[in-house]
């Protein structure tokens, strides 16, 4: 149970406070409701590049990091296809420094040309390090446009290509800031050794004077229903063949989301899970295999990825994956197995209460979903899933015409 208080400033900033006196620390987590899905198709990777620029100095504070470190704080941020989330952890006695820093960069950035130039380079190196300079690094650069044809999930947060990042200019940066970085588009969560009255006072003092922005109405194209199986085969300089199969699944707020998530647990969470037991241990066909869902706000992908052993032909490897998926479609799961994955959900939620940063991020995310209180009822949503729900969801997901398959063939095997 994560308790919290909630209030909204006149400019539209939503503020949540979680009091936890057991820690000497405080966390300030600021979620902006903007991600890669809000980018123009010709300027992909921009939300993430922008996140880097948020550390390049703000209107009154030339350097974000130094004053943060000087009060013993640690800060970072991440960008997903849906959100951009900034967080700072610091000794609670220095809480106000976080308000000073975060409010100034919501008010305005320094928009330094030097910072833009350097961060373009840094992000290009990040692109190379994560996506280009290692085997299978480009899998998601291929899989997304294979599975999504219309929805902006068709590109990765890093961007479609290096050129989009190299071409970003200051006018674009300013327009992006004006459109997305304002109080009404953000959720502030303060957690740890803090009091609600204290947070109210600080929020009013530092964020209160920031002018309200215009909340932009997101109007993203829905991905049309996929009607035929898709396939891409890449011959690459990779050591082993590899298979990815992606299926369109429910969105985060759809009823079917919880069943889909439990299916991924049944298939691959823990060493008793189906795919690992059957295909790695018993039949000895794969060296590794995993199933997961992307956890996105809009319609998700459910993904199976695995590396077959050298003696297993790709077609045979695909076939055995499909057999396991068919089993979920044809046979109702036994109560024992369903309880097993539910027990794991329950314990994971209790362990998640140990970290204030994790609690703060969860509150912000669930507030974005509609109501932070729903975080405290997540377990119940999972517990309510029945064997019939699982089977029905499996029948929805695991259809050939709903699948996009990406195959890497190792050049030495070709």
């Amino acid at each position, binding site marked *: 149970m994560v308790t919290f208080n909630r209030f909204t400033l006149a400019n539209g900033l939503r503020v949540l406070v979680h009091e936890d006196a057991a820690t000497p620390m405080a966390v300030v987590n600021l979620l902006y409701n903007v991600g890669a899905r809000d980018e123009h198709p010709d300027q992909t990777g921009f939300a993430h590049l922008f996140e880097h620029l948020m550390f390049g100095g703000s209107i009154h504070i030339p350097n974000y990091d130094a004053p943060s470190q000087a009060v013993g704080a640690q800060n970072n941020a991440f960008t997903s296809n849906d959100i951009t989330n900034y967080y700072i952890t610091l000794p609670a006695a220095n809480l106000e420094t976080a*308000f*000073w820093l975060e409010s100034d960069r919501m008010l305005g950035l320094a928009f330094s040309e030097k910072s833009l130039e350097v961060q373009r380079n840094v992000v290009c190196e990040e692109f190379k390090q994560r996506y280009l300079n290692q*085997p299978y690094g480009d899998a998601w650069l291929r899989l997304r446009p294979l599975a999504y044809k219309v929805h902006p999930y068709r590109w990765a947060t890093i961007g479609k290509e290096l050129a989009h990042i190299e071409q970003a200019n200051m006018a674009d940066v300013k327009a992006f800031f004006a459109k997305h970085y304002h109080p009404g588009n953000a959720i502030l969560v303060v957690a740890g050794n803090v009091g609600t009255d204290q947070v109210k006072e600080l929020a009013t003092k530092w964020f209160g004077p920031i002018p309200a922005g215009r909340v932009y109405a997101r109007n993203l194209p829905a991905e049309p229903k996929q009607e035929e199986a898709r396939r891409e085969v890449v011959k690459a300089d990779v050591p082993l063949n590899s298979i990815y199969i992606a299926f369109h699944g429910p969105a985060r707020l759809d009823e079917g989301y919880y069943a889909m998530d439990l299916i991924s647990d049944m298939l691959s969470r*823990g*060493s008793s899970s189906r795919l690992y037991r059957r295909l790695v241990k018993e039949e000895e066909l794969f060296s590794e295999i995993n199933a997961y869902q992307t956890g996105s706000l809009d319609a998700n992908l459910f993904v199976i990825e695995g590396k077959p052993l050298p003696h297993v032909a790709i077609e045979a490897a695909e076939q055995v994956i499909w057999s396991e998926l068919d089993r979920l479609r044809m046979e109702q799961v036994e109560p024992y197995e369903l309880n097993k994955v539910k027990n*794991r*959900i329950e314990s994971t939620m209790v362990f998640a209460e140990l970290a204030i940063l994790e609690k703060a991020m969860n509150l912000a995310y669930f507030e974005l979903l509609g109501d932070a209180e729903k975080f405290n009822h997540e377990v119940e949503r999972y517990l309510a899933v029945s064997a019939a729900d699982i089977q029905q969801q499996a029948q929805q997901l695991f259809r050939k015409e709903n699948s996009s398959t990406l195959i890497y063939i190792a050049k030495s095997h070709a």
Partner: protein
Amino acid sequence: MLDRTLPPAYHPVTDFKLLKPLHIPFPNGVQTFVFNAGDQDLVRIEWIFGNVFAQEDQSLLNSCASELLLEGTTKYSSKQIAELVDFHGAFLVPEYGYDQSALTLFSLNKHLDQLLPLVKNILTDAIFPERELATYIRNNKQKLQVSLKKNSFVARRLFNKTLFGPTRYGYIPDVPDYDRIAREALLALFKQQYTPANCTLIVSGKVTDGVIDALRQLFGDSWQLADKAIPVDPAPKFAPTEGLLVVDERKDALQSAIRLGSQSIQRSHPDFPGLQVLNTLLGGYFGSRLMTNIREEKGYTYSIGSGLASLRHSAFFTISSEVGVAVTKATLAEIEKEIQRLREEPVEESELALVKNYLMGSMLGSLENVFSHADKFKTVYFSGLGLEYYDYYSDTINSITAEEIARLANTYLNYQNMIKVIVGKYES
């Protein structure tokens, strides 16, 4: 009117409170340390065994024994163990490190009655079935093939090998080495290493008297071996190294992985905390000189950092990064420049003050929950030190001067003598 150019008042962190463990030595030699705190009904229990090396080139055997612990006993199959752990929503994780092998259980208290006897069975009765070993070998050979295509992985291997030579810390397995792992050797190692006298038990979370009683019964009273001696493990001998340059050219590389460093001092050395401050200045945090110069000024890399690691028989200092291939040499030149600057120019008071505040804040922040208190204890305990080390650590940080930083840089950081490993492109 709010003046946003002025930072709010700073409140220094001058000390922090560490939880002291309750030490319960079991009569069979198990040393148990209990950290009881927190509101959630859960625990983390760690069974930690000192690694025993029959030969210095056997680290692959040790890691294999650790990773195969859960793959079967005379009582339970691999599948049954996996089902029991997963059904109770628990996590049972073998971890292999340079000096210790640990088995860690994360569980809600309500399931311990089921899980503790299982762990007892595993630690006393693992049999490393032939078929599970074959699966392990097959899959790990595949994983290693993938890792060997990652420049940063290869750079770390070459660095360790060059730095520590033919010892447990420098030994790096190649794909065919996996085929030489024999079940008999695993069983022999298991018998020698997984003994009460070689076991430290760290229990943290909501540790009730009932939990302690159950642990004492299972891992104290009923776990008796004829041989009560701590296993003999002679210390490895390390040859001094010189400033070697090791280059592994990869023709299609977009980035070069760089790793350089040298052997260093252990935590028990009086200069260790001061060297940690120096390391932080150079490459130990986001605002460090390496990050500021090489990422934030020049944009050569996504990340660069340095670190200091204290091992049981040695220690090392290392700098690592992945940079665009065109700037490999330029990056090395900047690293050298930054090291020289620390040796020759006194650090500004403002920068030193910032690093001190940062380190004290990080220390406080690293004590978030009861598990972190146990981790702090483990760090000193396995270095042969007590919790009072942290008083010395904070005193050193609070009082260190620019002159002392320069002395440490001149004593411990010497670019010429560092081993330099480049995987990617050096001559571009």
